[in-house]
C-alpha cells in the first residue's frame, strides 16, 4: 500500500513456508487461484460436512475470498468484486480450517474462536479494502463456476488472480492488525 512498505508477493494455494513468513500488517499481492464463498455457500458447505458428504471443492491449502460479485458486463471477466464482511462466516470458519483451508480474504472483525483456529491450524486472515471493488476486480484474470450456481452472486467460483491487493490482518501466531492499527491512532 504505502510506497515505503515492503510488498510481499505470494502464491495461492498457500504453502506452509509462505504462511510462516506472513505477519499481521504485511502488505501482500496474491497470485494464483482462490475460491469465492460467502454466507449461503458457507452454510451449504457446513451442512454438507455435517451430513458426512464430500465437498464440491478441496479446501486443503486453499484461500476463500468472501465476495459476492456484481454480474460481469459484456466483455468483462468479472463485475465489481470487493470483500464482504467476514464476521458473518465466523460460525463456519473453524470447521473450514479443520478441512485444511489456509487463508481467507474479507473485511472486518473476526471472533476469538476464528483467531484461535488460525493459530491451531496455521492459517491467515487477509483483509482487502472494503468498497474498492472496481480496482480489486482488475486483479481477477479468470473466472470459473465451481458449485451452487443457483445461489447467483453467492455461488462458489474459482478466480485466477494476479497481484490481488490485500493486507495480513490475523497471522498464524494470532496477532490481529485491527487492534494494533486502531490503538496506534486512538486519542481516547
Amino acid at each position, binding site marked *: *500500500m*504505502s510506497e*515505503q*512498505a515492503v510488498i510481499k508477493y505470494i502464491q495461492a494455494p498457500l504453502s506452509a513456508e509462505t504462511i510462516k513468513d506472513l505477519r499481521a500488517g504485511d*502488505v501482500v499481492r496474491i497470485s494464483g487461484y482462490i475460491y469465492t464463498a460467502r454466507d*449461503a455457500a458457507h452454510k451449504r458447505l457446513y451442512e454438507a460436512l455435517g451430513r458426512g458428504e464430500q465437498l464440491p471443492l478441496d479446501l486443503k491449502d486453499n484461500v476463500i475470498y468472501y*465476495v*459476492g*460479485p*456484481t*454480474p*460481469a*458486463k459484456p466483455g*468483462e471477466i468479472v*463485475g*465489481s*468484486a*470487493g470483500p*464482504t*464482511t467476514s*464476521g458473518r462466516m465466523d460460525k463456519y470458519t473453524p470447521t473450514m480450517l479443520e478441512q485444511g483451508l489456509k487463508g481467507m480474504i474479507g*473485511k*472486518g*472483525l473476526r471472533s476469538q474462536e476464528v483467531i484461535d483456529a488460525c493459530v491451531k491450524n496455521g492459517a491467515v486472515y487477509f*483483509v482487502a*479494502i*472494503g*468498497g*474498492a*471493488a*472496481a*480496482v480489486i*476486480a*482488475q486483479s481477477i484474470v479468470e473466472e470459473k463456476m465451481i458449485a451452487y450456481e443457483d*445461489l*447467483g*452472486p*453467492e455461488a462458489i467460483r474459482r478466480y485466477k488472480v494476479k497481484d490481488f*491487493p490485500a*493486507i495480513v490482518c490475523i497471522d498464524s501466531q494470532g496477532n490481529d*492488525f*485491527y487492534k*494494533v*492499527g*486502531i*490503538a*496506534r*491512532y*486512538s*486519542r*481516547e
Partner: protein
Amino acid sequence: MREIDVASVRDTVAELCMEACYYLPSAVLNKLQAAESTEESPLGKEILGTLIENAQLAKKKAVPICQDTGLTVVFIEIGQEVHFTGGDLYSAIHAGVAKGYTEGYLRKSSVTDPVFVRKNTGDNTPAIIHASIVPGDKVHMIVCPKGCGSENMGALKMLKPADGVEGIIKFVVDTVRSAGPNPCPPITVGVGIGGNMEKAALLAKYSLTRQAGEHNPDPQYAALEEKLLELVNATGVGPSGLGGRTTALAVNVEYTATHIGGLPVAVNLNCHAARRAEAVL
C-alpha cells in the same frame, strides 16, 4: 392537478439506481480527497487514495463502485397536486428497481423471507419505499442503495431524557467504535433523535440522503454534528478500520419532537461511498 405517468417514475428510478451505484457523489469525492491530504496514517492515506482511484475507475467504466449494490431505499416526496396515471406508483418504483438492477448489471441482493427460505428474488425488489405527501405539483425522488456491511452495524437505543446530550454522544461514539472496520470507513454517520422508535430509525436513514457537507440548519444540532465528528475521528478506527484519523467523513443529525418521557436515538452508518442519486419530475 398535474398528471404524471408512472412509466416515467419507473424509468427515472432505474436510471437513479445505476447512477447511484456507478458514480461517487462529487461532494463525497471532495471529502475523500481532503482526508487523503490530512490523514496521518501512511496506510490510511494509501487506502483513501485507492478509494479515490476506485471511484474514478468505476466512473470511467460505468461499473459499480462496490459489489454490494445494496437494498434499494427510495425516498419519494409527492406533491399533493400530482395525479399518477398508467398504473400504481409503488409497482412502478419496484419495476424501476428491477429494470435498473438488471439492465445496469447491479448485484441482486434481496432475499424473500428473512428466516426460512432466504431465496434471492432475482431482481433486487422489493425496494424500501418511504413516501411522503408535500405541497406542490412535483415529485422528488432520492435513491440510496445501501449495503449490509454498514447497515448491520446500526443501532437504536431508547435513552432516558436524563441521559441528555452526553448520553447521545456516548451512544453514537460507542456504536462507531464497536463497528470498527465492518461498515467500510471512512463512514457517514446518520443519527436520528426524537419521535418514537421507528421515527428515530427513519430520521437516521433520512439524514444519509443529504449531500456530503450539508449541516442541520439548526445551529445547536449543527454544532452537535461537528462535536460528534471530532469524537468519532478520535477513536482511531481510520480508513478500512486499520487505524488512522479519518473514521468518518461526516455526521448528520436529524431531530423531531418526542414524548415527555423519551429520548430515542438511532444510528445508521453509511459506507465510504455514501451513495445517493436524485431527480425531480
